[in-house]
């Protein structure tokens, strides 16, 4: 009970500290040597500490199942395992916002600690913008979604956490994803601050780069975790559905990807100043935009914890405020950029990065349109539509082809100007090799379209070229090489996976047998067991191929009572060549089980390649810290 008050007061204290920092910072902005400036670090730490206190109060409330707290009551349950009691803290709207705030305050503190080499007025301005964001979220938290609302009289039992959220991957997915989202706020604040002080230059790029890498790496990992979870938990056997909720996490990732590249150009060549600032603004606003769409209940998904229009309206207002503020600052201070007329050579690394940015922005706009068009149409004409995978596939796949070609050649070019491409012969040889492989696939598998064949050829090309680059032993660019290699592997495994995947669905009773190519799938028996907070129905399947090699798969159906929900646990047998994926569902109270068996080649390589992509980012972060 007391923890409710501690958590609540800690938040209020945070708001007071935050406003003190905000207003005093504005006052002392031009004061060279104020007492406040020297002690800002401690103040920021205190603020972080109080948010942490508030956060831990909520965690302990969850652990102790204190149902006097409304958030705990709505999202927890006594018989839930301890691990999920803890992860339940951020498995709901209020708690996840508190986590968001915790990371925001930590970022502000950590930025100030690590930015001592920046001009002091720029640091202070960054903190001012950061405090503005923090105050916005604090107001929102305290007013519209307070996690410490007290219920009286105290109920005996909570409502429980949605069982499909009771999963180890989903317990760490939000913190990782939030680290990615929230650390873009530092890039946003810092770019606005540097813009106002006329400090957008190669030195700024060099310093802010690590924040860009941090956000990008965590966002990549966060999306990956969500994707793996969807793969085994939702029972569709896919990893990406072009669902609006996935799209809104992909959009900031794309603009961050553009930023990761363009900040290099700014650092090395001192061009693209305004573009870098625009990208920083876009990235952060897309992140907030995602929060708005998800939390307002406009999109219906697992992330929509509560459909509360008031909350949506608040975030929308806050979003527009931030966008207007940043656009205003951008146009007022735009002339402060160092103008230089450096020539851009078409045959250079700089230009290939600009090309990359154009393509990425195109992909971003396609996804943006596909995601928000249905919402607009519904508001304007009350017509309900959805935009499915065909739209995205059609508009993205053809443009991936030139994108991958530029991605293969770009990193091999030099900065500024390239006179001749070294080892041209090698590049041509690899190109022919990739085309031959793609034609081979095209010839033998009739369901491959021409479009896909070309895409396959260029992704093989990128794959070979990145492998060849490793052989050069150029340790300076290791992070870039690993990420690019990971990306080529990702495209390749997604392609091969979609070409060679096969499946069969059927409704089966115990003893039934179905055929799948040269294999037979037999439902042998059912088994019931009882676990701590759910009943388990295990289906025993035997899969036998023509060489009489047997594989036993045991998918489960779990019946939870709080809240009353049924979930399916797929049985997945993974090896380096393929995943064998079997999922069953109950249909009514019936002897029939709804069964789906899939063979998905190279599934594990999709995960591995995404890990490789983010590994490049991790290496970069570590490299920066070493210096």
């Amino acid at each position, binding site marked *: 009970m007391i923890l409710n008050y501690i958590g609540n007061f800690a938040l209020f204290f945070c708001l007071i500290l935050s406003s003190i920092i905000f207003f005093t910072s504005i006052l002392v902005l031009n004061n060279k040597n104020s007492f406040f400036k020297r002690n800002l670090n401690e103040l920021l730490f205190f603020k972080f500490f109080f948010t942490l206190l508030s956060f831990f109060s909520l965690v302990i409330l969850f652990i102790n199942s204190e149902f006097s707290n409304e958030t705990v009551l709505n999202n927890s349950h006594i018989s839930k395992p301890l691990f999920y009691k803890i992860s339940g803290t951020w498995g709901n709207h209020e708690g996840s916002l508190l986590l968001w705030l915790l990371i925001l305050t930590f970022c502000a503190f950590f930025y100030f600690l690590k930015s001592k080499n920046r001009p002091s007025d720029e640091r202070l301005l960054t903190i001012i913008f950061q405090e503005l964001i923090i105050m916005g979220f604090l107001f929102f938290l305290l007013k519209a979604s307070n996690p410490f609302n007290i219920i009286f009289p105290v109920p005996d039992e909570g409502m429980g956490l*949605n069982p*499909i959220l009771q999963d180890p991957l989903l317990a760490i997915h939000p913190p990782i994803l939030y680290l990615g989202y929230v650390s873009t706020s530092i890039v946003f604040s810092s770019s606005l601050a540097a813009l106002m002080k006329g400090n957008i230059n190669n030195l700024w790029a060099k310093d802010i780069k690590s924040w860009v890498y941090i956000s990008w790496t965590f966002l990549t990992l966060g999306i990956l975790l969500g994707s793996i979870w969807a793969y085994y938990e*939702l*029972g*569709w056997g896919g990893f990406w559905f072009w669902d609006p909720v996935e799209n809104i996490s992909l959009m900031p990732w794309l603009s961050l990807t553009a930023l990761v590249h363009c900040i290099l150009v700014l650092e090395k060549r001192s061009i693209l100043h305004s573009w870098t600032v625009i990208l920083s603004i876009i990235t952060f606003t897309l992140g907030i935009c995602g929060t708005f769409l998800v939390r307002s209940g406009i999109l*219906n*998904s*697992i992330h*929509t914890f509560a459909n509360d229009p008031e909350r949506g309206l608040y975030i929308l207002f806050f979003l527009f405020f931030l966008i207007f503020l940043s656009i205003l600052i951008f146009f007022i201070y735009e002339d402060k950029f160092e103008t230089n007329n450096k020539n851009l050579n078409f045959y250079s690394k700089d230009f290939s990065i600009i090309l990359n940015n154009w393509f990425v922005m*195109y992909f971003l*706009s*396609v996804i943006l*349109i*596909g995601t928000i*068009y*249905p919402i607009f149409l519904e508001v304007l004409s009350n*017509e*309900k*539509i*959805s*935009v*499915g995978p*065909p*739209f995205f596939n*059609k*508009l993205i796949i053809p443009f991936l082809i030139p994108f991958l070609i530029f991605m293969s050649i770009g990193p091999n070019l030099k900065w500024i100007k390239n006179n001749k491409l070294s080892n041209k012969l090698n590049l041509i040889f690899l190109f022919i090799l990739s085309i031959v492989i793609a034609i081979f696939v095209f010839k033998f598998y009739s369901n491959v379209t021409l479009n896909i064949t070309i895409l396959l050829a260029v992704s093989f090309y990128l794959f070979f070229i990145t492998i060849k680059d490793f052989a050069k032993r150029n340790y300076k660019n290791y992070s870039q090489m690993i990420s690019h290699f990971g990306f080529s592997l990702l495209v390749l495994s997604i392609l091969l996976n979609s070409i060679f995947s096969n499946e069969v*669905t*059927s*409704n*089966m*009773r115990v003893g*039934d047998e179905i055929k799948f190519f040269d294999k037979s799938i037999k439902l042998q028996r059912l088994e019931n067991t009882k676990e701590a907070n759910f009943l388990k129905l295990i289906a025993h399947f035997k899969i036998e191929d023509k060489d009489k090699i047997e594989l036993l798969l045991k998918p489960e159906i779990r019946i939870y009572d709080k*809240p*009353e*929900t*049924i*979930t*399916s646990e797929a049985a997945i047998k993974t090896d380096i060549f393929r995943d064998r994926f079997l*999922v069953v*569902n*109950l*249909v*009514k109270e*019936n002897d*029939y089980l*709804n069964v*789906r068996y899939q063979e998905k080649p190279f599934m594990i390589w999709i995960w591995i390649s995404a890990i490789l992509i983010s590994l490049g980012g991790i290496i970069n972060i570590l490299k920066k810290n070493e210096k």
Partner: protein
Amino acid sequence: MYNKKVKLRALFLFLSILSAILIIFLVLKSLEENVVYFLSPTDIKNLNEATAEKIRVGGMVKDQSIKINSDKINFIITDFKNEINVVYSGIIPNLFQENKGVVAEGVLKDKSFFEAEKILAKHDENYMPPEVKASLGEN
């Protein structure tokens, strides 16, 4: 005359505007081709003729309407005013139950018969398609 640099810039500007227009055209065109309309059983009843396009039908699964055999599932989607028969073969989501909300994607065979290709998962046991909620509120 203008120097080479200005000409190059003009060309560049022209090309970027041209490609922007082309891309907008392409995006809008594929949007038009690939959107899937969401209809309730009442909307379907009010159609003049069954469309051949892919649509989504949302409503509640009617009580006692799920029938299953080894290769397909039959059920009825209702919005408590009108209903439509659905046939489906494939995997169903966990929350597919009688008296719960459902969204099916597929093609209309005629105005009272729908062949579903996909049953969409809703991850909330209390989920109800907005139309159904609205029509329940009216009643």
